[in-house]
């Protein structure tokens, strides 16, 4: 009995050690890109299996389905291959997230397909990665797709890249081959703008330099892939980055508390710090940094907190709380790199919804500066951006946003574009340059008179586009002028024919009295102007 108890206590003691160790682990997110036959699935399967992060029932499942032969062969690629449709086609077609951990670190892998038609999936996986692994087939060298993967890693701002020179077993573990390919890759990295590059010779199939070092490549003295992943400094957030927190929600349980909830996007905040609320530009000081676990003296990205301020500022969702000393560019006009995500190509001047930080604003693409030929990395003129297309665009938003440069803040320098008609996420953008604030064009009419049903439908549609709308039955000029001053769209219910009020405050008939026609009069929705 005593013996059992002692053993039991020791077991508990060890687990406490383990838990403390667990608690100190940090998190590295990396992406992988590769095509059907460069052994990416095999590499990930091998990484998970050799680091003992695969359950036996999963291994059994892929030993069984690899079928046929009597030998119990584990198909590492099948360990990570996902959906049925993909298994049938034998390829990976969407981003899959995988998890493993070692004694030092937790890892999240964004496993992405590598063909050109999946550029959008690669961009998705890269958007949250701290590091990218790019596979190179040692027999084939730097191919078009290596360039594509390197370019996307640079485009999405992944700080570190590993060139995994794979299939070294098929080139007799040749040092000469590795030297040549790592040199070629370094040239490519410099060309696309990757600052930190590590080349590692591996064989995913045989396990050389994946988890353990390889006796078959004594000439290589660097770390195995896993050793590198475990030890590399995570290119972290700068402590001195200017503070940024998009306000997600105002928390107001009663009259005595009014807090602004958000996840810190960059920098550090302390109670007493001077802040500015954007876009209003009003300043105040941080009173408290509130969390469920008690108030904090200071907090840094990426913590989620709730701030209370010393003064009563009118702040709501979509606003941004920033350090006063940080440079902030509030603008409605900027240039951005864009990846197009949808079958329907990017259309100039069409109204999209732009989601940036915690707000959504109507926006239009005013110009496509060029598109990138991802095979040659050259640029060319373009009038549209197709699915998987990458280019540089100029965007104009209806309301100003805080446009941080993506190279300085991935969170507040990125945005997505949504098509309000289909609700699809159609584009992703990275802000590269702030442009002179666009001057509003000649204004479209903002008052419509129409029947009740049309007014109801119009109101619904306008709200979908995030327009401020007021419905009224009162045709009083003073009231209508006041509403116009408040920059709202006014819908007046009338029994007469549909009409709009022009800038001179005169009634004008409309050519097309349908809801779509009225929206066109208001210059709302799709189509060129």
């Amino acid at each position, binding site marked *: 009995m005593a013996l059992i108890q002692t053993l039991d206590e020791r077991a508990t003691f060890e687990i406490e050690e383990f838990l403390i160790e667990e608690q100190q682990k940090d998190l590295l997110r990396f992406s992988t890109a590769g095509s059907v036959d460069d052994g990416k699935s095999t590499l990930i399967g091998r990484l998970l299996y050799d680091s003992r992060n695969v359950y036996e029932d999963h291994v059994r499942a892929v030993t069984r389905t690899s079928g046929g032969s009597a030998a119990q062969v584990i198909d590492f690629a099948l360990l990570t291959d996902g959906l049925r449709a993909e298994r049938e086609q034998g390829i990976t077609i969407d981003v899959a997230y995988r998890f493993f951990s070692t004694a030092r670190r937790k890892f999240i892998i964004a496993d992405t397909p590598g063909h050109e038609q999946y550029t959008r999936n690669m961009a998705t996986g890269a958007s949250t990665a701290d590091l990218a692994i790019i596979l190179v087939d040692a027999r084939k060298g730097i191919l078009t797709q290596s360039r594509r993967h390197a370019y996307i890693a640079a485009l999405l701002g992944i700080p570190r890249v590993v060139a995994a020179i794979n299939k070294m077993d098929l080139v007799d573990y040749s040092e000469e081959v590795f030297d040549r390919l790592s040199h070629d890759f370094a040239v490519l990295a410099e060309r696309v*703008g990757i600052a930190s590059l590590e080349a590692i010779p591996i064989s995913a199939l045989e396990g050389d330099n994946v988890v353990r070092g390889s006796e078959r490549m004594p000439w290589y003295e660097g770390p195995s892939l896993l050793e590198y992943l475990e030890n590399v400094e995570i290119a972290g957030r700068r402590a001195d980055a200017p503070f940024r927190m998009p306000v997600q929600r105002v928390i107001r349980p009663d009259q005595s508390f009014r807090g602004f909830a958000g996840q810190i996007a960059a920098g550090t905040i302390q109670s007493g710090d001077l802040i500015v609320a954007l876009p209003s530009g009003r300043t105040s000081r941080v009173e408290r940094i509130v969390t469920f676990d008690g108030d904090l003296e200071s907090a840094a990205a990426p913590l989620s907190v709730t701030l209370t301020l010393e003064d009563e500022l009118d702040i709501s969702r979509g606003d941004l709380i920033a350090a006063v000393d940080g440079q902030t560019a509030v603008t409605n006009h900027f240039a951005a790199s864009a990846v197009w995500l949808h079958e329907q190509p990017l259309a100039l001047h069409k109204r999209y919804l732009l989601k940036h930080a915690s707000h959504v604003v109507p926006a239009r693409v005013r110009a496509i500066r060029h598109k990138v030929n991802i095979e040659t990395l050259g640029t060319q003129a373009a009038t549209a951006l197709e699915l998987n297309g990458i280019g540089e665009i100029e965007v104009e938003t209806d309301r100003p946003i805080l446009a941080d440069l993506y190279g300085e803040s991935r969170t507040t320098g990125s945005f997505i574009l949504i098509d309000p008609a289909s609700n699809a996420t159609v584009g992703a953008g990275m802000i590269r340059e702030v442009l002179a604030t666009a001057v509003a064009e000649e204004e479209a009419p903002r008052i419509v008179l129409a029947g009740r049903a049309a007014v109801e439908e119009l109101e619904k549609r306008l709200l979908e586009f995030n327009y401020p709308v007021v419905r009224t039955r009162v045709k009083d000029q003073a009231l209508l002028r006041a509403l116009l001053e408040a920059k709202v769209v006014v819908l007046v219910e009338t029994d007469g024919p549909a009409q709009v009020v022009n800038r001179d405050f005169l009634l004008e008939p409309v050519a097309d009295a349908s809801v779509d026609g009225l929206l066109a009069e208001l210059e709302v929705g799709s189509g060129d102007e």
Partner: protein
Amino acid sequence: MASATLPEIPVYDNSAPRLSHLRQLEAESIHIFREVASEFEKPVMLYSIGKDSSVMLRLAQKAFYPGPIPFPLLHVDTGYKFREMLEFRDNYTRELGLELLVWRNEGALADGANPVKLGTQRCCGLLKTTALLDALRHYGFDAAFGGARRDEEKSRAKERIYSFRDKAGQWNPKAQRPELWNLYNSRIGPGESIRVFPLSNWTELDIWHYIHLEEIPIVPLYFAKKRRMLVRGDSLIPLEQSFVQGLPGEEQMVKCRLRSLGCSPCTGAIRSDADTLPKIIAELVSFRSSERANRVIDHDQEGSMEIKKREGYF
């Protein structure tokens, strides 16, 4: 032809103190809760009473503190849940002052739906999937939080955090919305909805570790104790609402626990001495099979989880 060279990416210094992985996951989940509560008209949290639901609840408390959780909880009760689960559910939600909605497919239960008569697939289909879709439709919820994690099962590895469902509540793995950075697209049409998975990036070990660190209450069935079980081969079959007829000598007292909580007829127990959280975690670390392997339902056919998901299962 000009060259598409990008501005060089700075490799930042590492001077900022780094959060542990659990605090990073926590911050990310809180962000998701706040986004959904702010962008949807009528969100709900799917509450399954299990450990993942317990973690979701704690994260939701943190997200809106010092305010209350601004949405109700929905439990889809199959009628075959363990008594200890229901007791825990009622006590814990009352203690936290939460609004709890319970939905059962009463029609199917009145017709005597059970896993032996219908088979586990059809039984799950009626008592879980149909009941869930009916409940969401009945209340008009436009967003529903679920506790699914990407590490659970292969088809879930590709699930988005915001998972779009069509008017029939179904998931189309080929038409998922791209999800970049932490910018979630919450736009939906009438009758469509989004399932939201704030624990997407947590692993089973993360969940247990967090429960331990945060001292989060969980159902006692997770802890090992001597329980009366039907012992057949390697299987430990709970006696509560069992459809398995015991043979002489099969009924025994065994020290065991449940690794995941499902319906009593379809959930097997495992032999275990783990009666504390550290011991459960120690056991988990030494485990060599995934948690869902203990659920009878996933053995029906290869890819069965994906089929269920397409039909609207969580």
